[in-house]
């Protein structure tokens, strides 16, 4: 036994040492690029050149006057909000179903979680087939069921393409949200649910007045994650529509990629990407406040 204090006894030092690797990681791979992106957005840097000139707010002025950018901004908002609304409703419903006991429940849970495990790019490629203009299985099914007589050009029509993107984004986040909501549901004390039953509350009253309010903090966290994942996602839109037709379905990440990397205008690409920031900060603050607020009411 060592008679004097070792490093393992000194929690202050030990803490610093153990935190260091992740701190270095975050600084080098998140902090630096982030700062660099902000810096770039004020420059006239281009790919293929080491020239770095101060451009002031010119990049921002340019994109704000650009209808394609404004449309991408709007699309980002629509896709994020739309997919998250869909996710909240579907995940709550699925969690209710998965909570019940039935045969094959474990299998159902496994299948449900699959989309979460599939790489975005692979999944998006599969979805392009589902939405294909000639071979769309959705169209085929709708027609075979006699529900539709025309033909939907999913990825060829700007509005339908947005719907398709929303569906894929929702599909992607849905398993994760379901698992979170399921965990939240099982944390509601059984006696409270039973009290509501004895108090005469039917299914809907229980859902909306007892279970959902108690789930709010958990749902808020799920939505926060969903928003961040969706708003920053490049792959789905890039593979599904590539921003087309005619730049109508760009979201901020794809537009930033197109301008900054493919178009070599690093400055403008960075400016577009940075535009996500205030948007995400607002969402994060709102969600965390909501989570805290509902928690105060609870317990």
């Amino acid at each position, binding site marked *: 036994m060592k008679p004097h204090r070792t490093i393992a006894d000194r929690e202050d030092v030990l803490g610093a040492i153990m935190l260091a690797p992740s701190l270095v990681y975050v600084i080098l791979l998140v902090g630096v690029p982030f700062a660099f992106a902000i810096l770039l957005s004020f420059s006239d840097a281009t790919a293929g050149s080491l020239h770095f000139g101060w451009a002031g707010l010119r990049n921002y002025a340019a994109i704000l006057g650009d209808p394609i950018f404004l449309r991408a901004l709007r699309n980002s908002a629509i896709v994020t909000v739309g997919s998250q609304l869909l996710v909240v409703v579907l995940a709550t419903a699925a969690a209710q179903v998965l909570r019940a006991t039935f045969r094959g429940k474990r299998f159902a849970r496994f299948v449900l979680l699959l989309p979460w495990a599939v790489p975005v790019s692979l999944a998006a490629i599969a979805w392009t087939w589902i939405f294909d203009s000639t071979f769309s299985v959705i169209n085929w099914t709708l027609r075979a069921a006699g529900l539709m007589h025309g033909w939907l050009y999913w990825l060829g029509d700007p509005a339908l393409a947005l719907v398709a993107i929303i569906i894929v984004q929702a599909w992607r986040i849905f398993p994760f949200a379901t698992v979170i909501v399921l965990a939240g549901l099982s944390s509601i004390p059984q006696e409270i649910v039973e009290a509501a*039953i004895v108090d005469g509350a039917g299914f809907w009253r229980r859902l909306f007045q007892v279970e959902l309010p108690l789930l709010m903090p958990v749902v808020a966290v799920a939505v926060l994650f969903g928003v961040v994942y969706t708003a920053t996602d490049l792959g789905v839109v890039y593979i599904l529509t590539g921003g087309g037709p005619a730049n109508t379905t760009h979201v901020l990440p794809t537009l930033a990629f197109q301008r900054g990397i493919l178009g070599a205008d690093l400055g403008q690409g960075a400016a577009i990407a940075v535009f996500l920031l205030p948007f995400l900060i607002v969402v994060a603050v709102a969600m965390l406040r909501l989570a805290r607020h509902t928690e105060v*009411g*609870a317990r």
Partner: protein
Amino acid sequence: MDGVTLSIRDGEFLVLLGSSGSGKTTLLRMIAGLERPTSGEIHIGDQRVDGDVPPRARGIAMVFQSYALYPHRTVFQNIAFPLEASRTPRKQIEEKVRWAAELFSISRYLDRYPRQLSGGERQRVALCRALVRDPKVFLLDEPLANLDAKLRNTARDDLKRFQRRIKTTTVYVTHDQVEAMGLGDRIVVMERGKVRQIGTPQEVYEDPVDTFVATFVGQPPMNLLEARDPSLPARTLLGFRPEHFLPKTVFGTGDDTRVFRFAVRRVEYLGSDRYVYGSVVEAGAPPPAEVTIIAKVPATIALAIPEGETHEFAVPRRALRYFDADTGLKRAP
């Protein structure tokens, strides 16, 4: 649950008493409709409710052990919840909640959240929530178990007074026999899904039907001792309450008692009583396998009882109970 036949009188305070796993809570939940019996019938009033009558249509109200208050609703909203569920007009809800809160003196907490209340206050909110439904039956599942010992006594008294006042049939589940004795008009002693005895607290205490009830009710439990008495059938157990087992000198010469030689091992001084632990030694016979016998000597008997010595103790014959050692059932002397 096994062959439980039970009829509860209108306005009665019935206590289901048993240890955990005795089925008392399951029985309560079946009455509530939270669980369905595989067979058998349940009637509330003149309505048969087993089968498809949901809890809300049974005219019952239940208080859970954890109180199960809705944490995101204020006290007012908690109490109002069953009324909202039954679509009571807003104004009536308001009146009723205030009336109930008044009754349990929690009016000033109506705007608070459950987490801002003490255990006793939460319990009263839970009772209020049950009360406003005007139930035909109150179902209470260990409502005092989560209170500290001091509060439990006053809460017990409050509960009993309240039930006497509103005269609603009440089924009360507890594992605490003091609570059961203190509250129940009748007690149902349960064990492993079966009813062992139904009776008033006095009947259950004084005339237990078998050794299980004899040792489950009463603190310390009834002493059981093999009789070794030629005048009694073979394999008979003698039962007597610790408070009846007293030094022989306490009894007058005219009292009809049965005397035992009592080897005292240890004396526990508890203020109002002394608990004397030891075993009965029978003349001629080898000492029986150590059966601990307890005497509860009230403080009014100041007699010295030294440890490690053998004393003469006696039990009045009218306080002796007889049980079959094999079946455990009560038998006539």
